């Protein structure tokens, strides 16, 4: 998991560090910078996998703007690089590795922008690699002296003690292999920000072509068809938090279309059975089914599929959902994230979503995002304490009554 994310000079975030849990929910007023945090993580993923093209950034859900608008433009912040640092945790151990990414842009013209990772000069890279080695040497619980000596021997064997060897060391291709950068890349390299959209979920619009499922819910049927039977059975039961739902069918031949259950241009092969209607006439296609069930199914699929990112972002998880359903969905997301080893950064504007969180579980974290006096986006983690009997208020009520912050003050 990613345990710490430091964001410098990215949009409204001048310099801020967030300590993450497994499921991280961000609340705050519109424009406070919640989505910018998710975007920064998407930039980390793009940089680690050398996929910083504008198209790739769009495909990850980043709201790409001209470089000067992607960087912070507060007074006195002329820095040309976005700096992102993230630390990952090794399994269940306390050890972590830190990677710093410096991202800059080359601007030919308004239509010709190239983002790239600035790894610095050979000397700078070498210094970083040596610092990394030194850090690892201080963690005998993870890397014994034998490990380090082995790494050095490997280096010496593969590269004669020449300038080239030093450059290889500097680039970290040996030192980092399997331990730092690559491990981080495997964790967060495919991070994307998912944001459900009714037309995409209904199979009527394709904006994102990510596989197996687009960031707006495109090809949800394909993602579901790829689930293992036991996972699918669990998902179906969980989706029944939508009270009328009896069954969901993926119809690969789209046979049901020819029985008149789908009249339009939907590409989705998902069909839903309503338990209150007679079996002969209780089928709805993704094209005409209630919107809420599609959103629930989309979000649950993100957390059970092996093909979706291990670490992912969800913008506005509450869209189109009844308050009670928001709570149910959040609770299920927390359960599924633990079960399927996923990590999530989630934004919401619906207080009911918070009622699905258990803040006494350190892996479920709630952050209030706000702009400080200078307009910089910062966060504050909300921690829970025991409440006296009779005084208990739900988190949703605490938010609405102003105890959490994250609401406009211009009253």
């Amino acid at each position, binding site marked *: 998991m990613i345990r710490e994310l430091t964001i410098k000079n990215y949009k409204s975030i001048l310099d801020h560090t967030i300590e993450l849990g497994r499921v991280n929910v961000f609340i705050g007023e519109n424009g406070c910078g919640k989505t910018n945090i998710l975007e920064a993580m998407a930039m980390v993923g793009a940089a680690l996998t050398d996929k910083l093209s504008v198209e790739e950034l769009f495909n990850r859900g980043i709201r790409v703007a001209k470089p000067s608008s992607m960087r912070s433009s507060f007074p006195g912040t002329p820095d040309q690089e976005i700096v992102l640092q993230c630390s990952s945790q090794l399994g269940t151990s306390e050890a972590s590795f830190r990677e710093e990414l410096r991202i800059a842009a080359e601007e030919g013209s308004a239509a010709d922008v190239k983002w790239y990772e600035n790894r610095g000069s050979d000397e700078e890279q070498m210094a970083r690699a040596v610092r990394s080695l030194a850090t690892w040497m201080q963690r005998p619980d993870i890397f014994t002296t034998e490990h380090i000596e082995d790494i050095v021997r490997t280096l010496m064997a593969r590269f004669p003690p020449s300038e080239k060897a030093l450059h290889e060391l500097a680039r970290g291709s040996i030192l980092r292999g399997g331990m730092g950068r690559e491990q981080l890349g495997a964790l967060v390299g495919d991070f994307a920000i998912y944001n459900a959209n009714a037309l995409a979920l209904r199979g009527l619009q394709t904006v994102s072509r990510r596989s197996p499922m687009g960031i707006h819910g495109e090809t949800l049927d394909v993602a579901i068809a790829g689930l293992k039977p036991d996972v699918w059975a669990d998902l179906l039961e969980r989706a029944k938090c939508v009270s009328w739902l009896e069954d969901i069918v993926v119809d690969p031949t789209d046979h049901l279309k020819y029985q008149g259950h789908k009249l339009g241009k939907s590409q989705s092969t998902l069909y839903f059975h309503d338990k209150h209607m007679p079996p002969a006439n209780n089928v709805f296609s993704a094209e005409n089914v209630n919107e809420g069930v599609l959103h629930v199914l989309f979000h649950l699929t993100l957390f059970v599929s092996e093909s979706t990112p291990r670490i992912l972002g969800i913008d506005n998880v509450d869209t189109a959902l009844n308050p009670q359903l928001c709570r149910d969905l959040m609770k299920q997301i927390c359960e599924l994230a633990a079960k399927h080893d996923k990590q999530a950064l989630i934004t919401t504007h619906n207080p009911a979503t918070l009622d699905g969180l258990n*803040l006494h579980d350190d892996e479920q974290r709630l952050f*209030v995002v*706000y702009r*400080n*006096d200078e307009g910089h986006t910062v966060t*504050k983690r*909300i*921690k*829970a*304490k*025991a*409440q*006296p009997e009779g*005084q*208990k*208020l739900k*988190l949703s009520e*605490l938010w*609405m*009554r*102003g*105890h*959490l*912050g*994250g609401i406009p*003050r*211009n*009253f």
Partner: protein
Amino acid sequence: MRVGIVAEGRGDLAVIANILKGKLGLDFEDVQFIRPEYDMDETDVHDQAEALRGGWGRVKRECVERGRIREFVENAIDDEILVLIQIDTAEAHEKGYDIERPGRDDPDYAAVLRRRVVEKINAWLEGEGVERVRHAVAVEETEAWVLTIFSAKDTATFGDPKKKLNEVINKAMPDKERKRHFQLKEYAQAHELTRPFRKRRELEKFADRNLSLRLFVDSLGEPGEG
């Protein structure tokens, strides 16, 4: 740290929030407005006149009933907390407020009056949680504190601080700015006027121009007066 404020009016909330920034470095997100209520829905707002949502009577009622104060203190959020009670002394003699004023010629007029009001508030609270309560007692009105930003004189000497403040604004602001200012809501007006309080050094300078402001600012760094 989170600070909950019980105040007479929305403008008072803004003034106190700016002072808290200057003295303790607290952002708005660290400050919570307990009274006047701003979490009422529009139906309730319609039912309740603006005048009824503020005033010393409301402050007293909250101190006596303590419903929202307890909710703030005892809710599930784990943070260090402080409760701030703001009240003016302009109506301190009224029935129910029941403060005996010291003589106007008393050199310690403001300090004595403040002490009596603090004791009164603590009595309303029946001593509950007073160790984490601080008292923003403006002698005689919060406008006297605001005036410290615009006047180098001791602002306690102004007979009618509200009127004086309006005069100062009319004089200090160009027509266009003044028009815009008076179109703002009460909270926004007070927030903009008292922005200079958000800088510590400036706040210290202004506090020297009004004893009740000085006593309040200093109390923020001290143990409770309970």
